[in-house]
């Protein structure tokens, strides 16, 4: 009886979404089918929800590709509304970006075709990006992971886990709670970005990850929440932070907690430093990204995300980890064509709300630019640029300690950040925006034309 209970309590319950099945027989080619459909799913136990799903599940299946792969995604929109699929963080042609410029109407199909560049191995994600509807479509279940692998990954083979973090909120009848804009909660959602009281990991509530004492696991974490900033920590554990949005760092960074803003990703090495049979919990610690006016009353409450359950097995010797992961050459700041200032206020960039018929900035193909992003208000704004990865130069004048590839930088309240970006390969119109989805859909977004 006891042994059975033990087995039950230590079962690993975290389920990774299945991989999108590659139909191609060509080498270095991944050809998959993705369909967005309205469906009824049990997103919370005991009740069914009118949801949206990619290939019938939430989160959607994972797109797993390798550097250099040609990727063909046959997308079909079976929803009764317009949508797109944005391949968040990937460097790809404008036509494949899935931005509001290329909507896919109800019942329509679109093939997204692009090639994964070398040096971009990392963790990305995909989600809808239609005009004004991104927030609701993501909230109803449309999000999924992308994992890009390198042939020469510097880390030894490690047990790998994918954790897609997504909070959500439901009405008693199971419907996703999406209050109208001009209701009290709608107003708060509009201000803070919509947060949920339920914290999902891969669509599960408080799943368990099993670890053996001494073991090292590689975790890929995606913040697919509309607004929440996760301050990740595992009490009693140090974490090796090995990568961010665009893949691995040059060197691992030993830390006790990691901030992951909306749409950001991190790669972590979780080391089983606890004793056999012990238990810990991966937590989201309080983080004050809010303005006082709409700060949630319970914001200071830590939230449990994942149980970390040690097996009863005796400890194993930890694997040796490389001191250096890969080269991340810093972009050349001496050949910058343009320096732009992006002033973030509450809902606006440079004082303007988004207009699809307006180009806000024009850059030259191949040029490097520095963008100085200034947040003038008392709320954090995660700033995302489509199509081109960038490096953070400094935050509030403090140089970034090491280069890393980013596509989203959180600019905390009343601070600034400078990024450097090179507009290689792809002309087109690219969005830059706050990735608090409520801010994005209400116009905290601009258009950069690269030509």
């Amino acid at each position, binding site marked *: 009886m006891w042994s059975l209970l033990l087995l039950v309590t230590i079962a690993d319950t975290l389920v990774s979404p299945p991989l999108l099945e590659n139909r191609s027989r060509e080498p270095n080619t991944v050809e998959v089918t993705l369909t967005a459909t309205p469906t009824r799913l049990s997103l919370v136990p005991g009740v069914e929800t009118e949801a949206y799903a990619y290939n019938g599940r939430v989160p959607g299946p994972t797109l797993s590709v390798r550097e250099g792969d040609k990727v063909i995604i046959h997308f079909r929109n079976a929803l009764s509304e317009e949508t797109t699929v944005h391949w968040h963080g990937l460097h790809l042609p404008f036509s494949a970006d899935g931005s509001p410029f290329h909507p896919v109407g109800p019942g329509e199909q679109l093939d997204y075709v692009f090639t994964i560049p070398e040096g971009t191995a990392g963790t990305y994600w995909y989600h809808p990006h239609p005009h004004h509807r991104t927030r609701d479509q993501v909230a109803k279940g449309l999000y999924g992971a992308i994992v890009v692998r390198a042939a020469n990954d510097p880390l030894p083979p490690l047990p790998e886990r994918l954790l897609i973090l997504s909070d959500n909120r439901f009405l008693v009848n199971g419907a996703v709670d999406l209050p109208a804009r001009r209701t009290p909660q709608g107003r*708060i959602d509009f201000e803070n970005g919509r947060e949920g009281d339920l914290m999902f990991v891969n669509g599960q509530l408080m799943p368990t990850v099993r670890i053996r004492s001494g073991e090292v696991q590689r975790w890929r974490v995606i913040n697919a929440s509309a607004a929440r900033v996760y301050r990740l920590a595992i009490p009693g554990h140090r974490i090796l932070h090995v990568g961010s949005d665009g893949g691995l760092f040059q060197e691992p960074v030993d830390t006790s907690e990691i901030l992951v803003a909306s749409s950001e990703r991190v790669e972590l090495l979780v080391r089983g430093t606890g004793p056999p049979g012990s238990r810990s919990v991966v937590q989201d610690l309080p983080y004050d990204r809010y303005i006082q006016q709409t700060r949630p009353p319970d914001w200071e409450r830590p939230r449990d995300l994942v149980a970390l359950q040690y097996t009863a097995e005796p400890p194993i010797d930890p694997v040796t980890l490389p001191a250096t992961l890969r080269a991340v050459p810093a972009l050349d700041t001496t050949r910058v064509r343009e320096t732009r200032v992006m002033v973030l*206020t*509450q809902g*606006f960039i440079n*004082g303007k*709300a988004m207009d699809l018929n307006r180009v806000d900035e024009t850059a030259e193909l191949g040029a490097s630019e520095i963008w100085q992003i*200034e947040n*003038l208000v008392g709320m954090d704004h995660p700033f995302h640029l489509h199509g081109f990865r960038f490096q953070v130069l400094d935050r509030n004048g403090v140089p970034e300690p090491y280069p890393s590839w980013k596509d989203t930088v959180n600019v905390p309240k009343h601070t600034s950040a400078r990024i450097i970006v090179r507009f290689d390969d792809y002309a087109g119109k690219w969005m830059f925006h706050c990735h608090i989805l409520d801010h994005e859909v209400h116009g905290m977004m601009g258009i950069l034309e690269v030509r």
Partner: protein
Amino acid sequence: MPSRASGTRWLRSSLFLAGLPVAVGLAAGLTGSSPAAPPSQADAVLRGRQLVLQHGCAGCHGGVVSPAQDGWLVGMRGPELEFRIGPCAFQPGAEPCFRTRPRNLTPDNLTGLGRFSARQIFNALRFGLRPGETPDLEITSTTPGEGNHPLDPKYLAPPMPWPAFRHMPDAELWAIAAYLKDGVQAVSHRVDDSEGPPDFWAEAYTVEAIGPHPAAAFPTGNEVRPAAGSTELAKVLKGRELVISHACGDCHGGGGNPAAEGWLAGVRSPQMEFPVGPCIADSTKPCLMQRPRNLTPHQATGTGGYSERQIFNALRYGLRPSETPDLAISSTILGRGNFPATPNYLGQGMPWPYWRYMSDEDLWAVAAYLKHGLKPVANQVKDSDSPADFWASEYTVEKIGTYPAPSFPTAHERRPGG
């Protein structure tokens, strides 16, 4: 500092003693008139400076009355300068309690107004819209959702007196924006954000609460067309606009609405009295009660018995009409140029150290409005309490700065483009 205290108390009194959670707005005013040709930026900066001085911006935003003073317009520099808005203003610990903080008005990019456009500053003063929460657009309506006025407007926190300031003419608001953008040195100084309710004060700043813009047409039932030959109508109308945009009615009655009962008729209930003195800092200490007086031209109880020159002298020099001879004063030095050797000043709370920076023409216009544009109302207001020196020790040059103001630019200012 008495000048800060007077400005602050002026606001505090209007906010709290009237029993209102937020500033009592001004409902009256005149439509702004655009100048025939736009003034040069340099002219606008100088005009803006005068308006910033005379409206007492620095009383809350730093520097008190002198652009030569450290901290000129850099925003609140200590927690003791916060405002407490809500029930806690009357009862410590009561909820809700919103702490509001005058922000940095210098053109620093990250901490001041540097990244906001002149239009956003104009929109803040005319419509009360927070620059950080409002797009940079021309707004053509005071109705939320119309003419680029946000559907869910987010307002500046009280006690920012924008409901009064909005009645300045367009050119004056643009001039203030010009001065703040181009006439002040940028100073990096972070002021914590003001607190407020989730609706950003929208419920407090309805038309019902603060009145329309533009204000009710002249004359309302409280007003009268000047008698033939007494003065020019244009002067009276200018005086009316100044009275509204300087929020005189917030203390003297009627709030911002010349049509309201009690408009400028002085204290009519104990709630309109307010304390000054040691009790502000320590409730066990004595208070000196101030009672805004009747400004209507009633002979026995109002300003009817005083000349326009005495009203001018009250506004320019702070001299009580009842204790000061009716003479032209040509000096600010005690005992010289008809300035009394032992001056008796208006009660503390009356912000004359700011009002004195109005031009002569404007002060005469205010006097003309009070004397010739208002119907007399009999309302005897009990005298304000005052110390034996009638506040003389509070109104020294050291405490309230010089008149005229130091010449432009001081070390805290800069020439446009410089």
